[in-house]
Each structure stands twice: as structure tokens, then as C-alpha cells.
């Protein structure tokens, strides 16, 4: 069994008395694209920099290909990094930037060949003599990637590489980034705060919060089977409703109305949080429905229409439902019936202060 490309055990970082990264364990198999996401301040960038060797660890270990690299400099670890601002050297040509990390002994011809190869790889053939100041944001990013790849790193680390770009380019570059990673099969860890982006590119997603990794899994896993209410609402949108367990397979929403839910692991009477995604909410005719709601607002989003619903049993709350636009969605003020298919429902233990 091949050792994981990257293994982190109990990695901790403290600034004074503040713990920014809290005993993180992580295993990344080789060739995978892993995204670290989380709200700002959760420690994801610090963790990334510790993987790079730019931040020293207060505790724990980092292993790359079975080698304990804790305490080693970035170059000694064999990592490459792309920074949020790219940090391209403005006074050097693209070629010189990319060749910066190459060893001193290499001949000029070898350097040029390597640079040209890298430029081909990132899709910028012939850009060698240009200056970074002349390049667009997307082109700069690609040069930054080429520069990081020049040293043949075992691990590629990306710190919010797409955040500085405008959305049109971002999507295109996101796909290119993914394709590039697949082509090169280089183990990649990317930090981003854009969860849609993470869902699109990652093989594995690690959701961080307050210095800890709350859940790691494939994007589908995280999206469809979030393990906490926080993850449910951070990755994608979620309706979170306070409920009590009233039996095997049912909960009472707002303590008032029953609905089926996978509550087997909970005891009767326990307070839980009932979660369902907007697109999973089914609208039915109001006549037979147990759960009714009034459409408070309706916004058109192209493929979907998002409805904000005020439930009959809890008129101050708001539920969200995403309905396909084609085929007609109810207007504001209409009364509708709601159904929450149990297979799309997640139930979490209720913790204080979680529900908005």
C-alpha cells in the first residue's frame, strides 16, 4: 500500500495564547486534489503555510511521502506554492520568474527548455520574454503556477489562486486548473473560501472551522451527507429547523408538526436540528398538505426560482425552496404545501446558538 503523499498528525499552531490550528490530522493520497475550505479565520491559510514550511509548527508532524519534514524548509520538502497575490517578480521576465527556482548548475539551454515546456503546460507558449506587468490576471496566475511547478514539487499548494480574478475568467481557469492537475497528477492542496469552486474542482473537500477539520470527504459526500449543521449550511444552502424527535423515523418541526426524518440514532424527545436543502423541498397542493406555507418572496435566478416561505406553524421563520423555473413556480402570496422527503433530510443534534 502506497503511503499517503501527505500526512499530517496533530498539527498545531499557536500565536501567543490563541490556537489557530488545533491538532489537525489529515491524510492525502498521491495525485489527489484536496480543497481546504472554511469561513475566514478558521485557520486554513495557516495550515497551508505550515504544510509549505513557511510557518513553523507549535506541535505535531508533517510527513511527505513517508518522510518527516516537520521543521524543514519549503525547498527541502519538495513543495511548490502559488500565493494569492502571485508574487511574481515584476522586474524579471516571465522566463526569469519561472526559472527562479531552478538549480544554479543547470545550463542556459536546459533552463530555456524547461521554461518553454512549462509554458506549454500552462497554456502560455511563447510568453517567455514578456513582463509580468503586461499580463492579465489569468495569465499571471498561470505563470505563478508554472513557476511553482518548475522545481518538480511532490506537492502543489495553492492559496486562493482564483480569488483575485473576475468571475468570468474564474470559472474558465478553474476548469483549466483541474485539467492541469489531472494531466500532471501532482498532489494538490488548495485553500479557498468559495465553496462552489471547491465543489467543482476537488477530489476531496476538508471543511475547517476554528482550527479543526470538521469533515473530509468527496464533494458529493460533503454536500449530501454533511455531518454537522454548520457544514450543511456552509457548503451549499440549508434550511435548519428546530425539532424534537417524536419516534422512530419522525420528528416534530418547531415542536408542532410531524414529518418523517431519519431519527433512528436519537432518543425520543431529544432536541435536534432538522436540515433539508432548498432544492429538495417539494411543493404540493395546499389542500392535503400537513405543512403549509405562504410564499413571502420570489426571486428569479435563471434556471431556478428561489422562494422564501413563511410556514404556517412558525410564521416568523423563513424556509427556502428552489423550484425549477420552467413549469411555473407559485407567485408571492400564494399558499403552498410542503413535503420534505425523508431521504433528503439530515438530522443533527441541536447545539446552542447554531440556529440563526
Amino acid at each position, binding site marked *: 500500500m502506497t503511503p499517503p503523499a501527505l500526512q499530517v498528525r496533530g498539527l498545531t499552531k499557536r500565536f501567543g495564547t490563541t490556537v489557530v490550528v488545533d491538532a489537525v490530522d489529515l491524510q492525502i493520497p498521491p495525485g489527489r486534489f484536496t480543497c481546504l475550505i472554511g469561513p475566514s479565520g478558521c485557520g486554513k491559510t495557516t495550515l497551508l503555510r505550515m504544510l509549505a514550511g513557511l510557518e*513553523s509548527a507549535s506541535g505535531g508532524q508533517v510527513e511527505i511521502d513517508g518522510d518527516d519534514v516537520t521543521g524543514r524548509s519549503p525547498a527541502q520538502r519538495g513543495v511548490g506554492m502559488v*500565493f494569492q*497575490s502571485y*508574487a511574481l517578480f*515584476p522586474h524579471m*521576465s516571465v522566463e526569469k520568474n519561472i526559472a*527562479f527556482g531552478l538549480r544554479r548548475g543547470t545550463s542556459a539551454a536546459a533552463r530555456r527548455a524547461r521554461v518553454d515546456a512549462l509554458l506549454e503546460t500552462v497554456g502560455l507558449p511563447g510568453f517567455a520574454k514578456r513582463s509580468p*506587468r*503586461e499580463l492579465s490576471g489569468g495569465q499571471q496566475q498561470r505563470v505563478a503556477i508554472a513557476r*511553482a511547478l518548475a522545481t518538480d514539487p511532490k506537492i502543489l499548494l495553492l492559496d486562493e489562486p482564483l480569488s483575485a480574478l473576475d468571475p468570468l475568467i474564474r470559472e474558465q481557469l478553474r476548469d483549466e486548473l483541474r485539467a492541469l492537475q489531472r494531466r500532471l497528477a501532482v498532489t494538490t492542496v488548495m485553500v479557498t473560501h468559495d465553496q462552489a469552486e471547491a465543489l467543482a474542482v476537488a477530489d476531496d473537500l476538508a471543511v475547517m472551522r476554528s482550527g479543526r477539520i470538521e469533515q473530509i470527504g468527496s464533494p458529493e459526500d460533503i454536500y449530501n451527507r454533511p455531518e454537522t449543521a454548520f457544514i450543511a449550511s456552509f457548503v451549499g444552502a440549508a434550511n435548519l429547523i428546530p425539532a424534537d424527535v417524536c419516534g422512530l423515523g419522525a420528528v416534530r418541526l418547531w415542536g408542532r408538526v410531524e414529518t418523517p426524518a431519519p431519527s433512528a440514532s436519537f432518543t425520543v424527545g431529544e432536541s435536534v436540528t432538522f436540515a433539508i436543502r432548498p432544492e429538495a423541498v417539494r411543493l404540493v397542493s395546499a389542500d392535503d398538505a400537513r405543512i403549509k406555507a405562504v410564499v413571502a418572496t420570489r426571486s428569479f435566478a435563471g434556471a431556478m426560482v428561489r422562494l422564501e416561505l413563511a410556514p404556517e406553524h412558525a410564521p416568523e421563520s423563513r424556509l427556502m425552496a428552489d423550484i425549477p423555473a420552467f413549469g411555473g413556480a407559485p407567485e408571492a402570496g400564494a399558499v403552498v404545501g410542503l413535503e420534505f422527503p425523508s431521504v433528503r433530510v439530515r438530522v443533527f443534534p441541536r447545539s446552542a446558538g447554531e440556529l440563526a
Partner: protein
Amino acid sequence: MRVLRWGENLPALAFLAAMTVFLVAPLLSLFAQAVVSPAGGLTGAVLLRFASAPGLKAAVRNTALLGVGVAAIVLPLAFATAYALERTRLPYRRVLAAVAGAPLLVPSLLPALALVYLFGRQGLLTPVFSGRTAYGWPGLLAADAFAAFPHALILLRTALSAADGRLYEQAALLGAGPWRTFWRITLPGARHGLVSAGVVVFSLTIADVGAPKVIGGGLNVVALEVYKAVLGRQDFPLGAAGALMLLAPSLLAVAIERLAARRQAALVSSGSTAYRPKPQRARDLGLGLLCGLVGFVIVGLLGVCQWAALVRLWPYDLGFTLQSYDFDRFDGGGWSAAIDSLLLGLGTAAFGVLAAFLGAYVAERTRAATPLRSAVAVLALAPASTPGLALGLAYILYFNDPSNPLHVLYGGFAILVAATVTHYYTVAHLTFVSAVKALDHEFEAAGRALGKSRLVVMARVIAPLSAPALVEVSVYLFVAATTTVSAVVFLYPPDVKLAAVAVLNMDDAGDSAPAAAMGTLILYMNLVARLVGLAARSRLARLAPS
């Protein structure tokens, strides 16, 4: 488990060690004179003697007013000029830059001398002001402002030259008019530059002795008290006490500068676009007139000096003569003084650039522990607040001691270079700090991630990107060395004569015309240096990828 970051702290410690040897230790030995009694214990007697000296209160008041007054005059003018140079497309900007830097090219005595020729008893323009002469406050403020102006300009130019074009485009899109843009974007961005410039101007002014001597009338300032104590009464402890008094307000100013520095963000990264100034009629006209006036005054005063050097005997015989250039007849070592000054200039520029760049690098681009970084910042500003006289005296006392292992430095060129580099360290340091602060802070991290040490990044990235500042600082230090007097007057070895010292001595002896003549010689030598610098800068601009 805490990891001690020796790697990060080491450069800062090295800098502090160097500063200790070349600044702190000599000053401490001087100040020990002021607080250590002959018996060996601490005593406040000397300080008390100085503090109770008659006229000290007035001297302190005058010194404070002078420092603030000159800063109040210089900062707006220097800012306007820097703005005109960096943020507009006024024609003849190069000429303006050259002229605006001219006061640096002559010893600080010279403008005072020119003012006497213009507004003294026999002044050319005195009748215009119904016979009121410039002696006293008007002349003093004018002479010191003239001398301090280029120091402020160099700092403000560096601060204003780092501009992110995107911010201005944003402002324009949001409908901000020129005033709002100026108030909300330009000015805050230059805040650090303004504060440093104010500190430097204030400190230089309160330590100056030349102008008060020549044109102060009877106005007493603390610097004069120090001068009188050391050179008139050879009372070193008393002089040291006075120097301490001059140091205190400057240290306070330094503290203020530190506070302002904390809030300056990186202005330029590889993502920002260059700022392309656009012409604006009303603003350009106003600025053009103001700068024209400033330039006229500067050229005028220097021109008067040149005229006075060519006149047989002012005001009685205005015939042309070159006799004032026959330096061997007068004090100072004649023409060889010019050569020695040139050598001092080159040595100071070379060592000073290295020292200041490294110091600024340590201050801004290493992650040393906070107390170390604060110490570095404070010590970097200390030289500007140290009166040259105190520094020279401190050096002679500290280095001329046979029990000091560094004794070997004394009596040669080396100590002159050391003293001059230390004396003028601050502006050099601050210029590099401005330049280096503005560079993307991830450069070092990127270099490390690519396997290159901090040293490599410093040499291949930070230094080349600071090249314009490098040229600026070299010229500044060269020129400073050729015009400096107060620090070196104690230190120059017997076989070295210095031109600026010659000017001082000749003026002291009342030989104003030869003093002016030697001053013009220094001016021309420094003009050549400036031109070389300009050529280098334009060459750099052409080499850098656009």
C-alpha cells in the same frame, strides 16, 4: 513547543550591534561626561548647570519654534513639489527636480551667506524692505528652510511615487473629484512619508549651527549653546548636556513616526497597475507657479553666492575678479580640499548605501521579534536627531582611546566615513524603507518556496526593485559628505582637508567671498554627481520592463 526564530532575529541583532558600535556607544561615552562626576558617581550637577544657564529658556523656546516653523514652511512646499514631480505631467519636471535638490549640494552656511548679501546691512534687496534686514527670525527660517527642503523632498517623492493606478481609476469611476481623490487616497497613502519628513526636518533644524551663526542676529538656540560650550569653553560635559537636550525632542518625534508607520500598508504589489497621471488645468497651473517660485528662490540664492565669489569687494568694489578662488591664500588647504572631499563622498556613498539598504531590509522585510524591530526603527532615526557636533566629539572621545579595540579606525579616512555615514544614515534608511515597504510582502516567502534563501531574494529581487532608491541614496550621501561640517570638524586627520570645513573657517574669519567661492566649487562638484545620478536613473527606467 516554542521554536526560537534565530534566523529571523539574527539580521536585526547584527544591525543593532553595528548601530551600537557606531552610534550608541560613542554617544553614551559622551553623555557619560554629562552625568558622571569626576569622582565616578552619577551626578546631575552638569545638567543642572546647563539647565540653569542664563538664556537657556529663551534658547529652548527659540529652538522649538524654529523646528516647528521650518517644518511648517517646508512640508507643504516639499509635498507640493513632490506631487508635481511624481503625480503630474508638468513640463520641465526634470529641471525642477534638479533645482529642487540643489540646496543639498552646498554647505548649509551658504544660503545664510547669500541672505546676508541680499538682506544684510549692505544687502542688495534691503532697501526694498525699507532697510529692515533679514537678521533674526526671517533669515533664520529662510536659511534653515532652504537647507531642509531637499531632505523632505526626497522622502515625499519616494512616498508619492508608489501609487496604484487602480485606486485612482476606482475613485474616478465612483465620481470622486480631484479634491476628494487627493484627500482620501493620495494624502493617506503618503502619510508615513509626511511624518518621516516632518521628523527629519525638525531634527535637522534644531541641530543646525551654521545658519544661527551667520544670520541669527542675536537669537540664541540650543545648538549655539552646545557650540559655545564645546568650542568656546572646551567644556565637554556642558556641551554633552546640551546635546542631550537636543536629542530629547527628536526622540519624541521618532516615537510619533513609529506610530504612523504601523498603519502603512503595502501600496504596490505585482497585481497593481502603474499610475498614469493626467493633466488637469487648474491644478497644474497652480502647482507650476508654486514650483516655479521655489525654483526661482533656490537658483537665486545660489546665484547670489556665485556673484559674491566673483566680486572684488562687496559692496564697494563690484568689479570682476577671480581672487576669491585663490584658496591657498585663505584657510582650508586650498584645492586639495576638493579632492579629499570627493574621496570622502565616494566612500560615504558606497558604505552608506550598503548599510542603509541592509538596515531598511532588516527593519521591513524580516520578521524579527517586535521589540527588536522597534529598536531597529528607533535607532535608525536616532542619527537625524544627533547634532553633528555631538557625534564628532563623541567619536573622538570614543575611538581615540587606546584601550578601544576599534582605535585603529581613528586618524584615517575610515573614521570620517564612519562618522558621515552614521550622521546621514536616517534619510538613507527611510528612503530605502519607503521603497522596500512598498514591495509585495510575499516575495521572500515565494523565494523560500522555490528553494532560494532570503539572501538570494534580497539580492535578486528586493535590491533590483529598489534600484531607483539606490541611486537616489548614493547621490544623497555623496553630496552630504562633501557638504558636511559639524561632525567632521573634530575628526579629519592632519593630512586630509575638507572643502566644507574650509568654507566654515573662511566665513568664521570673515572671508565671506572666498567662503562663497569654495561653496560654489562644492556646488559644481555635486552638480556633476547629480547629473551622473540622473543619467543612471533614466537608464534604469529604460531597462526595466515597462
